[in-house]
């Protein structure tokens, strides 16, 4: 029987809500992005990407649980950001997370629409939101559906499948169909889910792992990210119910089993496991790991105790209220002397490890909102000041954050500064690491 440390969830949510308020600009939640693929550290304006999945779902869940009007106010604010950003064609403009500012972000536009659909029932009149969701989903179908291969590409005209992104899109399509009672999108959702299931490993030591990408929509690429595997689970669980297909449910169970087996003793997950058995351990997500825990929660995986993982997450919260991105970005910088070997995490972290990113913190927010015990209050929390020694491109530096600013300095030199209200960070023309 699990004994999750739920007593701290309310306080943690209070601080995280306070931090989210500090990164909210008039047109949306904003800030730099650190990611495995690449970083978006100069552009720090708003974006309508997967951050709105967790933010809207999280605030909606809090309102349902507590009836507190302040959470409904946050839901309405988030909806306004998404609707205002929507363009004539149905897309959301800046929507590509680590590639921002860029449009047609996958799975980001679908994830933001999913956020809308999670909270539309809280509105007195959800007509406008449902129409915005329909227009966005139609835009994605028009841009990405490939009639010749009968599936969704990741980029218009480039044949290929990305299972975790297909899962998010399928989830949004199914949810729209259920809420609107319009089944137009259901065949697309079924096709996407079938493609997800097609790229799940069905035998051997990594049974349940999911190929990251299938170039040419043929065989998978042999790269297995636990985080992205987890992102497939909620859609498969929903798909089993919508289409009455047991195989989707079995696939979801297989993936969660893989997630449990690939977890380390400290409750963290490696970044990638390769088909040849090699592993890229770093960076190990901290805030992003919330989506893995969310998958275990949604799948109701029996017999697993993820106390250590939740404890690791809760312990990591910064005094300024956000959750750090990862452990181990520093190890990626050791090429060619051994980037794949792990160094002790007690070493001074890279600044990207510490940097809290709204599109990772939304995942923590949604998880904690769902874990919050029914009677638990969420207190207003005073935010502190974060001041941590870090490494910045080989330099010894300090990461500092308060309600107005994130900065990295080395002695008297300022290496990076983001005033939280501004659309671009200041770096003295020092182009940050990609």
């Amino acid at each position, binding site marked *: 029987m699990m004994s999750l440390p739920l007593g701290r969830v309310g306080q943690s949510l209070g601080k995280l809500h306070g931090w989210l308020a500090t990164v909210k600009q008039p047109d949306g939640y904003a800030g730099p992005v650190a990611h495995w693929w*690449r970083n978006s550290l100069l552009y720090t*304006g708003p974006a309508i990407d997967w951050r709105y999945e967790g933010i809207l779902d999280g605030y909606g869940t809090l309102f349902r649980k507590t009836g507190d009007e302040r959470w409904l106010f946050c839901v309405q604010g988030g909806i306004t950001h998404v609707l205002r950003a929507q363009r004539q064609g149905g897309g959301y*403009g*800046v929507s590509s997370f680590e590639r921002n500012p860029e449009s047609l972000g996958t799975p980001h536009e679908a994830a933001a629409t999913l956020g809308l659909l999670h909270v539309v029932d809280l509105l007195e009149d959800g007509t406008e939101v449902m129409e915005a969701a329909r227009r966005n989903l139609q835009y994605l179908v028009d841009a990405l559906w490939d009639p010749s291969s009968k599936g969704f590409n990741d980029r218009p005209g480039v044949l290929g499948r990305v299972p975790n992104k297909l899962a998010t899109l399928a989830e949004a399509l199914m949810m729209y169909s259920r809420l609107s009672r319009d089944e137009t999108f259901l065949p697309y959702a079924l096709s996407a889910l079938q493609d997800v299931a097609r790229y799940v490993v069905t035998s051997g030591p990594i049974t349940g792992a999911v190929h990251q990408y299938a170039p040419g929509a043929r065989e998978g690429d042999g790269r297995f990210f636990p985080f992205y595997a987890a992102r497939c689970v909620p859609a498969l669980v929903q798909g089993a119910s919508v289409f009455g297909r047991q195989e989707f449910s079995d696939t979801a169970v297989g993936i969660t089993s893989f997630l449990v087996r690939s977890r380390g003793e400290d409750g963290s997950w490696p970044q990638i496991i390769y088909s040849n058995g090699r592993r*890229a351990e770093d960076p190990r997500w901290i805030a992003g790991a919330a989506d893995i825990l969310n998958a275990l929660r949604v799948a109701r995986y029996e017999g697993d105790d993820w106390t250590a993982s939740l404890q690791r997450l809760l312990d990591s919260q910064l005094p300024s209220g956000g959750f750090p991105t990862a452990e181990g970005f520093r190890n990626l910088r050791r090429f*060619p002397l051994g980037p794949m070997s792990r160094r002790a995490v007690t070493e001074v972290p890279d600044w990207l490890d510490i940097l809290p990113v709204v599109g990772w913190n939304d995942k923590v927010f949604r998880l904690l909102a769902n874990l919050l015990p029914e009677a638990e209050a969420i207190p207003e929390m005073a935010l502190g000041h974060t001041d941590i020694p870090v490494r910045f491109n080989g330099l010894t530096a300090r990461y500092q954050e308060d309600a107005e600013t994130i900065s990295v300095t080395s002695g008297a030199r300022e290496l990076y500064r983001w005033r939280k209200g501004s*659309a*671009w960070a200041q770096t003295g*023309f020092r182009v940050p690491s990609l």
Partner: protein
Amino acid sequence: MEIHQVLRPSHPHVEVTGAHQLSWNVMLDAVFADASQAGVASMTVSLAHQDVLTWAHLRADVTPAQGDRRAILCQSFDMMLDPTYTIAYTVEHGGVLGGAIQRRNHLSDHTWVARQQCWVYTWKSRLMGIPIRLANAARRPDLVDRYMREMRAQMVSRKSTVSYYHLTVWERGVAQL
């Protein structure tokens, strides 16, 4: 930020995908981040590829005008002769020598002073294409990821080096204002 776009397709055509797409995104981010702090209200963008113009436009859309300066982003120094521009961003490509000749011909009157510069898509970064292809051929996705990461890590240099692109920020000399 207000933006005026000019498509100049006379430059050597380069497919703006892969590393070139990444390079242009890096440079445009650097340009608009700088412009936002330098007090630029409007920017004329004269580039050789429609996709790059579109990406510039997206950045202008999300960059509030902060002052009253006029700037130009271009790939040719002759565009900088207009005296109403007080800040210029130039992207040279085609090798180190070609850029130097252009500069000597167009900037000999010393009205512009280079404030910042960086070299993008460096030779070290381009060199990573070889191990990436070899690793792909050997079906070693773990090595592909390592070399891809190194390719990105070596993409930009603040020190002079052989590179595909060279971005410079120019300020009009104080005496000319």
